[in-house]
Each structure stands twice: as C-alpha cells, then as structure tokens.
C-alpha cells in the first residue's frame, strides 16, 4: 500500500500545482471585476467549501461517537476535522477580505457572508477551547461531541437565516438560485479542479492528523529522568 499512497500524494501535489498555474494562465478574467481580482475565486471558493465540508465531517464523526460505539477514533477524527476546518475557514476569510478590499473598497463590511463565516469560526474556536478545558479523555470526547452536534443545529442559522437580515453584495454562488451553472467553461474547469484538489488535500491531511492524535494520546507518560 505504501508506494500507492506515496504516488497518490505526488499526484495531488501535481494536481494542485496545475490548478495554480491554470488559475493564473489558463482561465480568463471574469467580466465586471477590477483588474485580476476575479482569479482569487479559484482559491477562495474551494477553501470555503472545504471549511464547510470539514465542519460537517466533524458533525458526522461526533454523531457517530455519541450514538455509536463511542470509539476514541471517531473523537480524534472529529477534532482533527474541526482544526482543519478552522484553517481553511480562516484562509477563506482572509482571501475574501483581500478581494473585498479591491472590489468593495474595505477589507471588512459585515457582508452577510462575512458574518456567517465569522460566526462559524467563533463557534468552532469555542469547541477547541472546550477540549482544552477537559482533562479526562472519555469525558472530553463526550462533551466535545455534544457541542459539535449542537453546532449541527445552530450553524444553519449562521449560514441561512442570520444573513437574510440584510442584503448581500457577495457574488452569486456558482450554482445560482435558478439551479443553473453560469460560468465560462475554462473558469469552471479550474474552479472544479481546485475544489477537487482542496477536498482531496483535506481528506489526506485529516487522515494524517487523526493518526498523529492517536500517537499523542497513546504515547506513554514521559518518565522522570533519574539523576
């Protein structure tokens, strides 16, 4: 298996490198955007999608932990997914803010999309704070899983209800309200390849992080060095 895995990892790096090249040299510029700013889309959208995916993967593992066999592996997988979700979420926020500075004139203006992602980041940041505040492994897993499942109930309000209070300047999602994909084909190709690449990157790193967590937890207590 090992050579296959190594090959897959190399393929992923090549895939992502091609996506970056494609984003700058293959895809055309979108009409109505200042300068080259539309190119950030090829990174921003996959990052936001991956963060979203990561939080729901964490919700899945947390549900499975609470209502399944209570295996420590599910707990580690949930925690690792949330950590990665925060990383991708912060990246999506920062790329979004850079783009907003160019297009809207300010890094931050509490556009509903910005509000949603910040609320989600705060929620999952609190999840990590909860984990840090509980020493016992089983208890930590149980309480953290409960909080993550509570997130499944509360985060739809961040994404779908709170943003409706004000109107948004955010560009239409790729698949718009009419359920049609409206994008130039070459742009769409790069965007999809970015999304596939980032998703694969997420699952790869997630697998690594979950295993690292296991090694950390199962590492024997360091013994005092005898003088």
């Amino acid at each position, binding site marked *: 298996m090992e050579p296959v895995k190594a090959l897959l990892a190399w393929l992923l790096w090549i895939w992502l490198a091609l996506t970056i090249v494609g984003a700058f040299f293959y895809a055309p510029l979108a009409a109505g955007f200042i300068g080259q700013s539309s190119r950030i889309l090829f990174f921003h959208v996959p990052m936001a999608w991956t963060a979203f995916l990561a939080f729901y993967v964490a919700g899945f593992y947390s549900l499975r932990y*609470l209502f399944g066999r209570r295996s420590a592996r599910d707990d580690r997988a949930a925690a690792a997914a949330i950590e990665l979700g925060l990383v991708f979420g912060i990246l999506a926020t920062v790329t979004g803010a850079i783009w907003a500075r160019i297009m809207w004139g300010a890094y931050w203006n509490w556009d509903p999309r910005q509000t949603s992602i910040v*609320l989600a980041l*705060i*929620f999952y*940041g*609190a999840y990590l*704070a*909860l984990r840090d*505040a*509980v*020493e016992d492994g*089983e*208890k930590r897993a*149980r*309480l953290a*899983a*409960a*909080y993550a*499942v*509570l997130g*499944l*109930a*509360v985060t739809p*309000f*961040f994404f779908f*209800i*709170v943003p*409706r*209070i004000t109107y948004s300047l955010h560009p239409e999602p790729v698949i718009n309200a009419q359920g049609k994909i409206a994008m130039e084909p070459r742009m769409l190709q790069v965007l999809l390849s970015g999304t596939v690449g980032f998703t694969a990157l997420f699952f790869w790193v997630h697998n690594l992080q979950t295993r690292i967590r296991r090694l950390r937890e199962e590492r024997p207590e360091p013994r005092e060095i005898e003088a």
Partner: protein
Amino acid sequence: MGRRASSWAEEAAAVFAKEWRCELRTRYALNTLALFAFTTLVIVSVALGPLGIALSQGTSVLPVLLWLILLFAVAAGLPRAFVHEEETQTATALRLAARPSALFCGKLAYGLILVLALEAIVAPLFVAVMSLGVARPGAFVAALAAGGLGLAAGSTLVAAIIAQARGQGTLFAVLSFPVLLPLLLLSIELTRNAVAGAPAGMALLQVLLYDAMVIVVGLMLFPSVWNP
C-alpha cells in the same frame, strides 16, 4: 426491571420544585441576575441618559443594549444550575433520582422562569429610564418571551456541558455566546421591529424555530452529556 416509582412528569416537577426551593433559600441566582442587570442598566443609563442618544438612533441602538444586558446577566447567573450540583456532589443523587430528559426539562423550566422574571424587571425599567418609545408593546413582549426561551434553553445545555470542565465561569461565556449569537441577532431584529412599529415578519418565526431546535437537540444530547 421493576416498575418505576415515579412518572416522567413527577420527576420533572420535582426537579423544578427542588431548584426553586434551593434558589429561594439562598436567592443566589436571583440576586446575581438582578444586581448584575441593574448595575449594567445604571452604567448604560448614566452614560447615555435619555438625552444622550438621538431619538432616531434610539430605536436601532437601544434594543442592542437591552439584549446585551440580558445576555450578560444570564451568563452571570444561570450556569450555576449545574455547576452547583458538581460542587456539592449532589449530581450522583440527581442521576439516580430522575431520568435525564425529565431533569433537563425541570432545569430548563427553572431557567426559563428565572430569565422571564429578569426580563419582567429589567425591560420596563430599561424602557422607562431610556425613554424608549415602544410602538407595538405586544410584539415587544413576544420578542422578550421568545428570546428568553432561547436564552434559557441554550444556557441550560451549555451549563450542563461546562459543569464537568475546568474554568467554568469563563468557559460558559466562551461556549454559550456562539450558540446564542444567532438567537441574539434575531431577537434584536425582532425587538427593533416592535419598537419601530414594523411588522414582526419572519424574525419571530425564526426565533421560535431556534427555540424548538435547541430544545429538541438539548433533549437528544443531554443524556450523553449528563451520564458518564
């Protein structure tokens, strides 16, 4: 398996009665909530006063301040509901005495009455002191009631979670605020509409949806949070 000696409703009612009996002995939560809210109200009132804020701005700014006062007062008083059980080591007895869902409902009812009592004192005072003209008093009361239910439900569940962790006081704020954020934003929206005389619109429905969602998820999660 023998037949249970007490029904679900009896257990929930007993938990509720026990909470209030303990509360009325010490009046800890009542005093904390009331004093905290009163102090904050005095600060807001002295700093802004009835003339410190233009009438046109008042309708949008004052509901925010009202909900912030309520949120922080709840955070100061409510988490004790479960922390107290762990501190005095009565949690185990409680685990034996009532099934989790009955316990959750009893505690939730206690919290709800506490929040509603707080609102009954703070909201009229706030309206009077800040000279806040409320165009639709019925909608204003509905906003407070629906938002209060959400505050009580969210805080009760988070209180149960933090009772078993370290650093409970700060952790409660860290964990509960993100959960309560959408509720707070929607309640502020709802209160603004009531103050300005605009129709409640979807916001009331959304607050009620939030309440229902958190109560159902609370009932579902509470057994795993409560039982080791």
